[in-house]
Structures are given as C-alpha cells and as structure tokens.
C-alpha cells in the first residue's frame, strides 16, 4: 500500500510538472465575431490581452454586437437573448519537435537504443470552443481539446462567468462577477499568472522536469472553483474563492458511477482550497503596468489508484502557494513591448505522503520564477526571450534517482528539484489568426543537475528542445 501510494504521488508530481510546459492557451475568433471588433482590440498578439481584453473578460465575455433572437414576457421581462451566430471557434496546432539528444528507447531493455528524434504533431492539439455570451450577464469560455498523446478529446480550460457593472456616482466603474472554472488562474485577467502565461504553447513531445507548484497548472482540469471578484475603476482587482476536486475519468470503485471519489483516486482535495488574488493596474499614454499577488492553499489526500487503492483518510499534504506577478505593456500601432514576470513560493507540509513513505521530508518547499520580454512589430513579426527557474529543498524520495538499470531522464541523481533555463521564440503572423513560431528551450539545470542529472549520464542540455509550430484559430 505504501509503495503504491508513494508511486502514485511521484507520478502525480511528474504529471503536474508536465502542465508547466504543456500549457494550452487560446484566443478565439468567436469573440471577434461576437463583438465585431478585430483581434487587436483584445490582444496585442494572441493570446496576450490588452487593457480592453481584460475588461472584456472581467465583464463576462458578453459584449455582443450581433443580432439577437429575443423573448420577453408580458411584463417586458427579458426571457431570452441568443446571438444570431453562435460563438464557436476551432484551433489547430501542428508541430515539429527535436530534442538535442534523443531519448532512450525502452521497447527492449536488453537492446539499448534511441527513440526516434524529431516528432511531428499532426495535430499536436485540436480544440473546439464555445466562447462568448450565453445570456445577459452570463458568458463562457469552454474549450474541448484533442490531444495526440492521449488520442482523446477531453475538457480543457473552462471559465463560466456571471458579471455586471455598477456606474458609481463619480462615473467610475465597479465590475463584479463570479467565475466557475476548472484551473486556478484561468480566470485571471493578466498574462503574468500561470494559466495564460508564456510559453503560450510548447511541444507535448518534450521532457518535463519533476517539480511544479500546485497553482502552476498541477490542478488544471481536475478541479472546479467558484470565485467572486470585483474590478474597481479598471485598476484595482480583488478575487476570492475556493476549489474542490472534479476529477476527469475517475469512477467510484463500488458503483462505477462518476462519484463520489474514493481511494482509487490520487490527490483528492480535502474540503475546499481557498484561492485569492489582488492586483493593481495603472495605464498612462500607451503604457500599462500591473503588479499583484495571488495564492492558493491546497490540502490533498494522497489516495491511491484503481490497482492499488489507498483510503482517503488520515493525514493530508498541504501546499501553500503565494505568488507575486508583474506585467508591463507598451502598445502602439508599430511597436509592442511586453515585460512580464511571476514568482511562486510554495511551502509543503507533506504529512500524508511522509506517513506512507512517498517523501523523505515531512516538509519541503519550491520556488518557481519566470520572466519574459516580448516585442512585436506591427503585430506581424515578433520575438520573445524568457527565463525560468525552479528551486527547492532536496528530497531524494520525492525527486528520486533512477533505479538500477533503469533509463533515467525523468529522475534526479541528487534529489533536488532545480531546473533552470531559457526560452527564445520567433513568431510570424501572416494573418492575425495564424501564427508560425520557432521556439528553442535551453536547460542549464534539469532535475537538480547540469551533467549526469539523472544518474544515468544524461546532461540537462540534452533536453534542449527545438519546436516549430503552426498555430491557427478560426
């Protein structure tokens, strides 16, 4: 039982880390169809939002300039308001990925070999969206994605909103609303928070490091959160809410139904995990700057798997994430510059996993830092340079070494979570809904080391990734 739980925990850590580098992001032409405005109203270049785009999102995606099908009661109460054109979109990503050094081929452990280097993703990702107004004051961003790694369609980032606005006596606005979403920070208005941060898309054929904080995509699409927010005078933003597990593909072992969750499921949120956000934005001339804080406090019951269940009782793991973020934008017709950064601190109290032997320490910590600078010329040609780093306490059980004779790669020889590197990306947009990207990710540290980081002789730079992407949305 203990080893099964420990294994589940490690896989969950690795799986969570994958989301840092596989962050599906989107900007959808259905919004343009609905509003009648071009992409540039809401985006510098998709998916980065402008000030107007942030307001559009805060207002619930409901700004609507198309003809409506309506119904009213005898008392002139509004019963229905449907857009003449449904706000639907598609998104397609086609990619090519090349690692600096191929991965070992595990097809036959007795015959050492290398996996084929050079992965074509056709598609890497294909998404369908409903993105726009549902009813007066209610809007949605719903994404369903086909992922070639799993070969399945599944729910992706989703954000349902109710929003309204008060005009204060001094003619300042007070937007207030509620978001029901499935990924902490997917509802956020700035691109400095994880869900819609850079890199907006990366290869799903890359090697992901072991460590990631909870708020950094580890819970994406496996939770449901209800948050309430206010946005005063388009400048001061505050939000609070809570998240609870909403596992996809999990079934109750007794009934086979979609719930309640039991010990065949790993990492189930105990109670409700509070989420909070505070940000201030100031605009002057063609400039905009935002600084903020956000955080999440998650209690996870380790649980188990269908083959090795572990009861959802006993001590839990607690993750307290507190993050700072900043975003500066200069937006003009010819030149557009964005400087963005975030730092996430996570303190872990791992009583649950420590009891089962899944970690070596009862408490650990992680800090993830990301910064990037983007420049675009006339929204046609652009480049982004970014830095990323994750550091934290050593835990040789949580970040384990390769077993004897095993292939390594996603292991850590020294039990450290340290990963550090940079990303350079060049983009060309022949049209505003079509992006060609060439992205290179270079690692100076990976899972704790630079050379022989995995204990099997692989260097961090072997995981350097060249990624060519054709991304369009219609």
């Amino acid at each position, binding site marked *: 039982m203990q080893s099964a739980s420990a294994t589940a925990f490690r896989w969950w850590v690795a799986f969570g880390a994958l989301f840092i580098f596989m962050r599906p992001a989107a900007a959808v032409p259905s919004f343009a169809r609905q*509003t*009648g*405005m*071009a992409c*540039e*109203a809401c985006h510098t270049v998709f998916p980065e939002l402008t*000030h*107007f785009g942030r*307001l559009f999102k805060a*207002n619930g995606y409901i*700004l*609507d*300039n*198309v*003809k409506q099908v309506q119904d009213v009661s005898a008392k002139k109460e509004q019963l229905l308001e449907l857009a003449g054109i449904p706000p639907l979109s598609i998104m397609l990503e086609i990619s090519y990925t090349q690692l600096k050094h191929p991965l070992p081929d595990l097809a036959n452990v007795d015959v050492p070999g290398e996996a084929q280097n050079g992965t074509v993703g056709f598609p890497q990702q294909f998404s369908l969206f409903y993105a726009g107004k549902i009813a007066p004051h209610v809007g949605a961003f719903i994404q369903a994605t086909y992922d070639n790694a799993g070969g399945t369609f599944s729910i992706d980032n989703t954000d349902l909103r109710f929003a309204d*606005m008060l*005009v204060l006596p001094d*003619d*300042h*606005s007070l*937007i207030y609303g509620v978001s029901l979403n499935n990924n902490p920070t997917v509802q956020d208005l700035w691109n400095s928070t994880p869900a819609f941060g850079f890199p907006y898309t990366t290869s799903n054929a890359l090697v992901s490091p072991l460590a990631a904080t909870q708020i950094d995509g580890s819970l994406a699409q496996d939770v449901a959160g209800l948050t309430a927010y206010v946005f005063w005078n*388009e400048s001061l933003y505050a939000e609070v809410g809570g998240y609870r597990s909403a596992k996809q593909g999990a079934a109750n072992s007794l009934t086979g139904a979609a719930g309640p969750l039991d010990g065949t499921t790993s990492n189930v949120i105990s109670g409700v995990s509070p989420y909070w956000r505070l940000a201030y934005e100031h*605009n*002057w*001339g*063609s400039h905009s700057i935002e600084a903020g804080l956000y955080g999440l406090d998650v209690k996870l019951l380790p649980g188990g798997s269908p083959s090795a269940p572990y009861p959802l009782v006993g001590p839990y793991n607690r993750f307290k994430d507190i993050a700072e973020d900043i975003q500066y934008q200069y*937006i*003009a*017709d010819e030149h557009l510059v964005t400087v963005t950064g975030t730092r996430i601190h996570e303190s872990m109290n791992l009583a649950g996993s420590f009891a089962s032997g899944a970690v070596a320490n009862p408490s650990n910590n992680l800090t993830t830092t990301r910064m990037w600078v983007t420049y675009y010329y006339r929204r046609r040609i652009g480049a982004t340079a970014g830095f990323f780093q994750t550091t934290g306490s050593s835990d040789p059980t949580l970040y384990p070494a390769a077993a004897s004779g095993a292939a390594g790669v996603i292991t850590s020889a020294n039990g450290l979570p340290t990963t550090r590197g940079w990303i350079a990306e060049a983009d060309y947009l022949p049209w505003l809904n079509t992006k060609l990207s060439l992205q290179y990710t270079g690692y100076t540290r990976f899972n704790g080391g630079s050379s022989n980081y995995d204990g099997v002789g692989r260097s961090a730079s072997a995981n350097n990734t060249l990624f060519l992407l054709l991304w369009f949305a219609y």
Partner: protein
Amino acid sequence: MCYVLRVCIVVLLGLWFADSRADEPDPAAHAYARRLAVGVCGPCHGPHGSSVQPKFPHLAAQNANYLIAQLKNFRGQTRGDPDAISYMWGMAGPLTDETIDALAAYYSSQKAVSSRVADATELARGREIYANGVPSDGVPACAACHGPDGHGLGDFPRLAGQHSQYVLKQLSSFKSNMRNVAVMHGVAQTLRVTQMRAVAAYVESLE
C-alpha cells in the same frame, strides 16, 4: 484658393444646420448612454470621454453633431480609417439612433480635458498653420472650420486638447483617403508630415 472656397461653403452650411442638433434624450436613454459610456466605451475612451491611450480620441466636450455623424459613419461602415474598421465598425453596429443621440449628448456635456505642453518651436509653427493655413500650398486655416480656439464650429469637430498622435493619424488617413472626407483630403494632401506634427501638437495644447 479653391479649397479655401469649398471650406468656406462647408462652414456656412455647417453653421446653417448647427441648430439642428439632436433633441435631448429622455432620462432612461441618458442613463443607458452613461452606462455604455462608462462600461463599454470607457476602457478605450475613459469614463468621461477623456482617454488615457493616445490611440483613442478624447470624446469629452466634443460637438454632439460631429459625434452623431461619426457614430453613424461607423455603424454604416463608411468611415474607413484602420482603427475605425478594427474597433468602431463592430462597436457601433448595433447602436440605435436614439442611443447615438444619447451618447453624443453625454460626451458633449463632459468637461474638456486639460491641454498638454509641447515644444515651443513646434507649437509656434503649428499655431501659424492653424491660424493662417499654408497659402502657398493652398492649405486653408484650420481655424476657419474648427474655430480660433479649436472648439469646433457647427458640425466641425472640437480639436482642442485632442491627442496629437490621434490628430496626426487622422490627417494621414485624410491624406490617403482611407478616411474619405473630401474637404479634409483637400486640406491634408499638400501638408507635409512635419506640418501635420506641428499642427497636431498645437491643437493638443489648446484648452
């Protein structure tokens, strides 16, 4: 001189129809317009029509008739400068005449924005063009239509305090005919970019 004559005729016609300003909207229409102005137009033009970003024009204290005409041009997709197409064609699409009148009344009643100081030499050059035109190139005085103080006359828009970047972009659009206004095309087609910059800086400095 041909342009000067045409401009004078248009000025007289504008003044003639100046009193045809839209009726004051009813309270409900005004409240709706205020809500639209703050919540929908506000992110770009500011809650009182005083915009932060120079890409978007100030609307505060703008002439109501001019606002009405422009909103109808956006709605009818007859104003063709790039930002009109990208932003305003969609935004103005569903506006009714009543809402347009109410929005115009709201913005025209707002307090004008304060002026910005620019380089003294450029201001002097801009003042000269604004007040007297460039007779050698057939450019009439801007003041003839927009008033000596830049507050506009009749249907002609207020320019005082307007973002110079916006004014410059409009002059370029008039020149290229992307924004198809015959009178302003005639004015702008012989203006050099340096002259446009100077006059744009000058009108921004006006209160």
